[in-house]
C-alpha cells in the first residue's frame, strides 16, 4: 500500500484504532463494506495499533479506491532521539510548559479543552521556529518535574508517589506518540474516525490542521468500554484501602487512566461535526461522555433483505399450514458467558414443560470458551433436555433461518445485533433481552417505525421465567408468528436497508453541508 501523496488528497481519511484492515471484527467488516461499496470515493487509511506485531497481515484486502495506508503504533518503544531531551537552547520550552500548566490545572472542561489546543499550538510553534521538544524533555526537564510535583499535591497527595510517577509517564506516552503522528496525517477533504480514544483525538487534530470536516461513528462506546476494562485491570496498582470505605471507588491510578479516556472522548466529540451511533441507546451514553446532543445522529447497521427472500417464502409456506410437530426456537451466536446461554437453557426447561412441541437449536461456534460450553452441555444433560436442546455448531444463517419459528437472544450486553436484522429479513420474530439496540429493533425507534408494530418481545436479563413466558406468548399461534415476522421484515426493509445506509455515508462523504453549523461555530470560537 502506498504512503499518502500530499499532492493528491483523499476524499476521506479513515482513522482506525485497532481495527480495519488488520483486526477482524464487526467494525472491520462494516468498514470494509462501506469502502468497497463506495468505489467512487477515495480513502486514505490511518491505522493506530498497539505494536507492529498487530499489523503483520491484513485481514481485509482494501479495494483500489483506498489510495494510502499510514500506520502508527502507540506502544512501540520510542526512538532514542525522542528519549533524549532536546537542549533548552534549541527551543523556548516555556510556552509549552505554560500551556501544559493551563491544561493540567484547568478549572473547567471547556478551559481544559482550550488548553489542549494551546499545548499543541505551543508544540507546533517550537517546531515552526526550528526548535525541538521531545518526550525526553517531559521526562527530564525540571519544569516538567515541577508540574508533576504540583499535580501530585493537587490530585494525589496521599498516593504512593512512585506509582503515580510511573502512571503519569505511561499515561502520557501513547498520547505523545499519537500526537507526534499528527505530522503524518494524510491530507483529506474529510476525516472520519470509527471510535473516540486516541484515533478520535487525532481526528479532531487532523480536522483542525487541515480545516476539514470531522465525523465520528461509534459502534460500541469507546469511553465506556475502556472504563470497564480499567476497572477490572490488575496491572494498575490499587492501593489497599485503609478502611472499609465503599465511597472511595476506584484507586487513584485507575482514575488517572479513566480521566485520560474521558478526556480523549471529550476532545473527539468536541471536534466532530457529526457523531453517529448505531442506535438510540448509545446516543444517551455519548451525551453522558461529553457529546453535544444536537450533533448526534443514529445510523444503524444495515442488511439486504432480498437475500432472505427464499428463506422467508419457505417459512411462510410452512406456517400457513399451522404449527408443526416441532416449534423451533433458535439461538444464533457464540456460546460464551456474555450471551448468557445458561439462562436460555433454564428458560428452555420451563418452555418445554408447558409446550412439549418446543425444540431449542443453539447455533454458533462453541470453541471460544470451551469451559463455558461444557458447563452448558452438562446443564442440558442434567435437566434431561438432551433430546430437545441441541447444539448445532456454526451453520449457514440464511439456510437455517427458514426452519426457525422464533429467534431468541438472552445476552447481558449487546450493541446492534446483526442476527436480529437477519431474523427480521427472514420473517422470524425475536425474543431478546432489553439491552443495546434490541428495544429499537423489536418495538421500533421513531414514531413511524413504532407504528409498524412489534416484531417480538423484550425480556429482563438473567430471568429464565420472563424469557420462557415471552417465548410462550410469541409461539402461542402460527398466526402470531406470521404477524410478528411480517412486522420484522417490514421494519428491515424500511429502516435497515443496506443500500440506504451506505447511501447515507455517501451523502456524508460527498456533500459536506452537514458540517456548516459546526464550521461556523468553530469559527466563532476561534475569532
Amino acid at each position, binding site marked *: 500500500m502506498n504512503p499518502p501523496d500530499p499532492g493528491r488528497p483523499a476524499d476521506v481519511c479513515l482513522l482506525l484504532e485497532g*481495527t480495519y484492515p488488520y483486526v477482524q471484527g464487526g467494525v472491520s467488516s462494516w468498514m470494509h463494506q462501506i469502502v468497497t461499496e463506495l468505489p467512487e470515493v477515495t480513502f486514505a487509511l490511518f491505522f493506530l495499533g*498497539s505494536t507492529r506485531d498487530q499489523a503483520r497481515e491484513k485481514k481485509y484486502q482494501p479495494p483500489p479506491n483506498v489510495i494510502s495506508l499510514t500506520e502508527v503504533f502507540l506502544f512501540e518503544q520510542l526512538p532514542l532521539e525522542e528519549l533524549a531531551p532536546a537542549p533548552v537552547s534549541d527551543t523556548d520550552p516555556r510556552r509549552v510548559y505554560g500551556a501544559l500548566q493551563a491544561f493540567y490545572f484547568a478549572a473547567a472542561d471547556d478551559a481544559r479543552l482550550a488548553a489542549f489546543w494551546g499545548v499543541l499550538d505551543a508544540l507546533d510553534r517550537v517546531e515552526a521556529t526550528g526548535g525541538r521538544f521531545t518526550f525526553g524533555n517531559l521526562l527530564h526537564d*525540571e519544569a516538567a*518535574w515541577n508540574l508533576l510535583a504540583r499535580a501530585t499535591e493537587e490530585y494525589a*497527595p496521599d498516593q*504512593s508517589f512512585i506509582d503515580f510517577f510511573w502512571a503519569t509517564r505511561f499515561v502520557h506516552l501513547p498520547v505523545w506518540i499519537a500526537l507526534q503522528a499528527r505530522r503524518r496525517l494524510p491530507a483529506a477533504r474529510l476525516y472520519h474516525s470509527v471510535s473516540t480514544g486516541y484515533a478520535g483525538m487525532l481526528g479532531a487534530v487532523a480536522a483542525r490542521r487541515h480545516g476539514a470536516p470531522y465525523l465520528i461513528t461509534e459502534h460500541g462506546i469507546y469511553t465506556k*468500554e475502556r472504563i470497564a476494562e*480499567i476497572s477490572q485491570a490488575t496491572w494498575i496498582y490499587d492501593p489497599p484501602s485503609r478502611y472499609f470505605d465503599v465511597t472511595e471507588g476506584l484507586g487513584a491510578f485507575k482514575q488517572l487512566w479513566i480521566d485520560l479516556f474521558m478526556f480523549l472522548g471529550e476532545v473527539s466529540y468536541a471536534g466532530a461535526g457529526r457523531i453517529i451511533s448505531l442506535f438510540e441507546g448509545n446516543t444517551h451514553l455519548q451525551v453522558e461522555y461529553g457529546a453535544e446532543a444536537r450533533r448526534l445522529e443514529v445510523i444503524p447497521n444495515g442488511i439486504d433483505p432480498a437475500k432472505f427472500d427464499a428463506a422467508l417464502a419457505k417459512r411462510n409456506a410452512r406456517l400457513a399450514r399451522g404449527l408443526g410437530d416441532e416449534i423451533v426456537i433458535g439461538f444464533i451466536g457464540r456460546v460464551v458467558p456474555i450471551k448468557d446461554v445458561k439462562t436460555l437453557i433454564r428458560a428452555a426447561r420451563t418452555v418445554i414443560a408447558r409446550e412439549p412441541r418446543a425444540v431449542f437449536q443453539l447455533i454458533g461456534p462453541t470453541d471460544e470458551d470451551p469451559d463455558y460450553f461444557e458447563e452448558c452441555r452438562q446443564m442440558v444433560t442434567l435437566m434431561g433436555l438432551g433430546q430437545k436442546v441441541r447444539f448445532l455448531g456454526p451453520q449457514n444463517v440464511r439456510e437455517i433461518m427458514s426452519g426457525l419459528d422464533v429467534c431468541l437472544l438472552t445476552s447481558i450486553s449487546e450493541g446492534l445485533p446483526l442476527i436480529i436484522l437477519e431474523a427480521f429479513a427472514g420473517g422470524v420474530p425475536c425474543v431478546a433481552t432489553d439491552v443495546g439496540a434490541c428495544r429499537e429493533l423489536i418495538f421500533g425507534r421513531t414514531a413511524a417505525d413504532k407504528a409498524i408494530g412489534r416484531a417480538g418481545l423484550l425480556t429482563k436479563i438473567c430471568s429464565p421465567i420472563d424469557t420462557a413466558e415471552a417465548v410462550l406468548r410469541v409461539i402461542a399461534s402460527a398466526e402470531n408468528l406470521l404477524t410478528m415476522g411480517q412486522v420484522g421484515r417490514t421494519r428491515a426493509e424500511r429502516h435497515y436497508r443496506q443500500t440506504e445506509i451506505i447511501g447515507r455515508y455517501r451523502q456524508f462523504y460527498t456533500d459536506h453541508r452537514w458540517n456548516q453549523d459546526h464550521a461556523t461555530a468553530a469559527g466563532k470560537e476561534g475569532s
Partner: protein
Amino acid sequence: MAGIGFQLTRLMQKRTFAGGLQAYGYAALIGSGPWVLSMVTLAVLGTVLARAGRAGDLDVFFVAVTHIFAFSLIATGPLQLILSRYAADAVFARKPELVFPSLLAGLALVLGLGAAGGLTFFIGFVPAPPLFQFAAAGVLMVVSAIWVGAVYLTAVRDYSAVLRCFALGYGVSFLAAWALSRGWGIGGTMAGFLLGQLVLLLAIVRVIFAEFGRAAAPSFAFLAYFKQHRALAGCGLAYNLGIWIDKPLHWWFSPHSHRVAGALWASPLYDQAVFLSFLSVAPGMAVFLLTLETTFAGRYTEFFRLVVEKGTLGEIKRTKLEMAAALRAGLVQLLKFQGATTLALVFAAAPLLEALGLGAVQTLVFQVTLIGVFLLVLFLALLTVLFYLNRITDALICCTAFAVVNLAVTVAGLMLDERWYGLGFTAAAATAIVIATGFVNRAMHRLEYETFTSQPLYP
C-alpha cells in the same frame, strides 16, 4: 469493538526503582581514609625522631617514609575509590563473593607497580646502603597495598579487630626499626619498619578474609570500572593531590629545603608543623562520622525506602528536609568541636611548638595550617555528602579546585616569603568548601527531582 485497549501490562510490571540506595563505602572511606593514618604516623614519627636527637641518619629514614606515603597515596587514590565502588556494587548486587578476588587483584597490581617504582627510585636516585634501598622499595610496595586494603576495612564491622591490626603493625614497626637500627644502621631501621608494615598488611588481609573470604583467584574485573567511572577515579587522584601537593612543592622549591640524599628532599621548616597540625583532625572526624552514621545516613536510607516502598511525595519531601536538618546539625556540631580544638591549639601554638623544639616560622605555619585542617574537615564532610548523593562529577570539580588552588597559592607563597607558607593548603580548603556548599545545596534541593527523573523509561 474498535480500540487497542491496553498493551501496557508488560511495560508496567516490575517497574520500580532502579539503583539508588547503594552502600557507598567510599563515603566513609573519604572521611576516615588512609591519609589520616599517614599524617598521624608522620607526625608521631617526626616528633619522636626529633626528640631522639640522632637527626642525621634518621632524617633519611623519616624523609624516605614521608615520600613513600605522599606518592603512594596520590598514586593509589584513583584505585582506592574504584575498588570501593566495585566492592559496594558487588555487595549491593548480593554477590559478596566478588569482593575478595578484587582485593587480591588490587594488591597484586599495587605490589607490582610499587616494586617497579620503588626499586627504580631508591636504587636509581637515592644513594644509600643497598639494604636501605631494597627495604624502602619494599615499604613503598607494602604501604601502597595497605591503602588498598584499607578500602575494604571500611566495610568490616569489627572495628576493634581493625584497631588491633594497626596497633600490632605499628608496634612491630617501631620495635623492629629500633632493634635492627643497632646492627644495620638506617638500612636496619627501614627493614624493621618494613617488617611491621608487612605484619599490618597480612593482618588486614586476614580480617577482610574473615568478612568476605572465599577461596578464589584474583579477578581484575574491576579494571573496567576505570572506564565507566572516570570521574570517580579523578576524584581519588585530585583529592589526594590536594592534600599533599604543597609538601613536595616545599621540598623542591623552598629556599629552606635541603637535599637529604639524592632525590630525597626535605623542608623541616614546613613539614613538621604541617604534620603536627594534622593531628588536630581527630575530634572533628569523630564527631562528624558519628552524626553522619546516626542521623544523616538514617534519613538518607529512609528517603530511598519511601521512594521505593510507595511513600507519598509529601513524605518523601519531608524526609529530605529532615536529611538536610541532620546535615546542618552535624555541620554545626563539627564547627563547635573542631572550632574549639583549632582555636585552643592556635592560641597554645607558641609554647607547644617551643616545647617540641620548633621555631617561630614553624609556629606560624602551624597556626595557618591548623585553620586549613579545620576547613579541610568541613570540606570532607561536604564531600562525603556529595558522595552519598551520588554527585560524583560535582565532587570531582571540588577536588580539582582543591588541588589546583593548593598548587597555585603554594607556588605563589614560595615566591613571596615565610609569612605565606601554609596558606596554599588553607586557601584550597576554603575554596573547596565554597564550591562544595553550592553543590550540596543544589543536590539537596533537586534530590527528589533527580532521583526520579533519572529513571530510564525503558529498562
